[in-house]
């Protein structure tokens, strides 16, 4: 398809020719400065490796407590699922769903979609259902808020520190790692590479 060499800026619609940006580099719009695309050496392989890492971290982050509070010998653990359940039991179902959606389901959906799209390419096959999963990937990366959740946990940690003994749990560290790995995926994954290989 010869028009693949033409690029339209997603933010200002300026038509420009693809100057075949050398890897690893970002192509910026000549008029408004928006990122047109970024290329990386082995971007797809690295994205896949980072996705596998992130899935492990997400599992750990959900299985262990984020924070533990000790008050007069009594110990309470706060897991992510526990936080959702606590909000639910207080008649805050919508808020509980919002937390579950942005901190658990959307990051999980993003990582599973990436793994589904990238893993077959690694073995020289074409993934099935590329189109709906690509759309799911874009939606999920917009609504997943791992980094905000990490900051929220840190704020809670300091707030609780005034009340009692607080301990950062394993899940907090896993979430910090997940935040960094997902930022690295954002920097390495270029959908253009995906379309080139997935056809």
């Amino acid at each position, binding site marked *: 398809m010869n028009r693949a060499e033409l690029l339209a800026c997603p933010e*200002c619609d300026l038509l420009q020719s693809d100057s075949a940006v050398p890897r690893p580099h970002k192509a910026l719009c000549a008029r408004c400065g928006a990122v047109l695309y970024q290329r990386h050496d082995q971007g797809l392989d690295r994205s896949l490796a980072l996705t596998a890492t992130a899935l492990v971290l997400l599992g750990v982050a959900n299985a262990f407590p984020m924070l533990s509070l000790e008050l007069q010998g009594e110990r309470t653990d706060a897991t992510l699922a526990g936080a959702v359940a606590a909000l639910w039991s207080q008649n805050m179902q919508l808020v509980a769903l919002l937390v579950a959606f942005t901190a658990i389901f959307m990051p999980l959906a993003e990582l599973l979609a990436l793994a589904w799209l990238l893993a077959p390419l690694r073995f020289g096959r074409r993934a099935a259902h590329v189109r709906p999963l690509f759309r799911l990937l874009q939606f999920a990366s917009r609504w997943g808020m791992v980094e905000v959740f990490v900051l929220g946990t840190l704020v809670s940690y*300091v707030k609780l520190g005034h009340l009692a003994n607080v301990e950062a749990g394993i899940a907090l560290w896993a979430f910090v790692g997940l935040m960094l790995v997902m930022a690295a995926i954002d920097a390495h994954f270029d959908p253009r590479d995906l379309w080139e290989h997935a056809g």
Partner: protein
Amino acid sequence: MQASAASSGLLSCGACTLVSRATPAGVAQCPRCGCALHFRKPGSLGRTWAFLIAAIALYVPANTLPIMLTHSLFGSQDDTIISGVVFLWEDGSWYLALIVFFASIFVPLAKIIGLAVLCLSVQLRVAWRREQRARLYRLIESIGRWSMLDIFVVALLVTVVQLTALASVRAGPAALAFGAVVVLTMCAAQSFDPRLLWDPAKEPDERRAAA
């Protein structure tokens, strides 16, 4: 004058960015990823305003009602978002107070005002400082998610403290309103089409048809 894709009869896919030629009949589909193609997001300004007005309406209860209800042996206390920030400030955690103030009060307000300014500037067809307005839009889109901070903090505090004998913490009604404000402002930012900022002011017919 630099040519936009739309003025050349080309559609760029909002999902996968592929540029393809517009066909005369019906709703076009991206040949690569299958998404519906539009020159500009359909009904962009109307949808953005609708989300914004809903967000403004909920912004009031989000800030006046309590977001966290604390009961302890030392009495009970209802915290609004602002009183939570003040508490942190007076407590000496000024850096946390700044973070929470920025995420919970400044960001939602800045998003609402910023998007309203962008919508108005498109509707009044001003050519004023396009690049700065484009940058403003990019900023609004990227900082919006940080407003969720307070919701996450409330969720964790509620969980940790609810079971202890000394105190109980419950989420207040403002949590629901505030969560809605965050979602609505994010939807508003996504409904806005930044390409409208760059469209020439001269061809209102073409733009009206596209928007």
